[in-house]
């Protein structure tokens, strides 16, 4: 496979065309905006939390195929997971897109493994990881004792 077809795998193209969980969650427990001023990518992530578990998560925004598909696959991957699991998943994902995967990472990434091609394109790492950084910010937003800032 050429590095280009490895980057734009069918799963990524398909999620870019029809992103999952592309909606606003009314009355979300947490919400955050992510923004890459260098390229203009912008997205918002919303989440609902029950106990320690992400009960629902969604996103909307403008970005390239990599960032859109990453956000879409991320929402599908983290739903039903605990905040701690999500944190570990992000670490594995980050190692994947920066080409620093450790033994066992790929087995536990599931569908997210389609982003392995990103590591050949250092300028696109931010596109893939922006949704995850934004999700982290939304989780922090949720955990604020005083509630969500408008």
């Amino acid at each position, binding site marked *: 496979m*050429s*590095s*280009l077809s490895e*980057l*734009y795998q069918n799963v990524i*193209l398909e999620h*870019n*065309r029809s992103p999952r969980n592309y909606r606003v969650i009314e009355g979300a427990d947490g919400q955050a905006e992510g923004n890459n001023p*260098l*390229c*203009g*990518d*912008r997205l918002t992530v919303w989440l609902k939390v029950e106990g320690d578990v992400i009960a629902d998560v969604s996103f909307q925004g*403008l*970005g*390239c*195929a*990599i960032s*859109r598909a990453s956000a879409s696959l991320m929402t599908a991957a983290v739903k039903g997971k605990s905040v701690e699991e999500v944190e570990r998943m992000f670490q594995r994902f980050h190692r994947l897109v920066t080409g620093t995967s450790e033994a066992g990472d790929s087995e536990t990434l599931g569908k997210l493994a389609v982003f392995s091609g990103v590591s050949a*394109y250092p300028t*696109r790492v931010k*596109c893939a990881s922006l949704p995850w950084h934004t999700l982290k910010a939304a989780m922090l937003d949720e955990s604020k004792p005083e509630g969500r800032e408008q």
Partner: protein
Amino acid sequence: MKSALLLDLERIRADFPILTTAARDGRPLVYLDNAATSQKPRQVIEALTRFYAGGNANIHRGLHYLSERATTAYDGAREKVASFLGAAPSEIVFTRGTTEAINLVAQSWGRSTLRPGDEVLATGMEHHANLVPWQLVCEQTGARFRAVPVTDRGELDLDAFDGLLSDRTKLFAVGHISNALGTVNPVRELAAKAHARGALVLVDGAQSAPHLPVDMSELGCDFYACSGHKMCGPTGVGVLFGRRELLEKMPPWQTGGDMIERVTLERTTYAAPPSRFEAGTPPIAEVIALGAAVDYLRSVGLEAIGAWEGELLARATELVGAVPGVRLVGTAPEKAAVLSFVLDGVHPHDVGTILDDDGIAVRAGHHCAQPLMDRLGLPATVRASFAFYNTMDEVEALARGVRRAAEVFG
């Protein structure tokens, strides 16, 4: 094609060593990101090497032989640049680039001159480098920052310009050629109107100096800024042209060595321009190599350069414009060397990555012109920008690459 005959493309391309290096996965490089930075001919690279290998010394200080020679070469480069721009050497200040040149005018002239009630007029198609320095100095002085709106075709709204220009306008800042769209602004006419209301005119020439014959007396501006690295010269050096009587009155911006007349612990007097604005050791090697770049551009001929780039742009407009799903962004009748476009359903960054896979280097993004992108309702565009060393084959490769991007995402 007449202008193609005026340019010996094969010989010109042989002057640019980088054009034979490989791009991603060993593919031949198709360099269409010239608005970001141009490539360098060996004449410029050799000027740098020659200076460091056999001529390096500081200038305007040493009594020794090497310093004398370096000073002569540095001052000689100022004469070359002055002649290239149709100005006097005393009107040429070397800066780090266009950005620093504009900041110099904003902080020296602007900060010492602007008062509450005054206005600085820019335009909605400026590069951030010709917007933010004015916004800042307006905040600092209480002057008001205003901007001429842009039409759907990517031209300045000239009626709105007439309406915005007033006796309160102290300076009009305008790009000669839009880096994002390639629009050539009618700078001479705009300058005449601004002058009639008593305003000074600063022209951001970063995109015009490498593409058009530019003459300060003909352009009729008070300040003109350009960057060495966009005109076949090295990075780290740029040029500010300022009319002599304006530079004379302007206070220093940065201070230090080489810009003083007499320093005592009580009081310092400053050197005359241009030295007044060149504090510290300047980029000596880069200035000398910029002189070589200007010599090179003149040997090729700016008229021939403009004509050939016009043919490249016309062909690119035709071929890329014919790809299904492509929308050209910026369709002013007067354009130079830049083709900006979007492809339906494909983000510009993805187009850029697919072109890169074919060895084609373009820019995808907001081109440091966010207000313009907001006006056009786009987060980003793909921008192919041409130089005189580009070929029709490269234009065709671009169009094929855009077609491929449409297929990958189809």
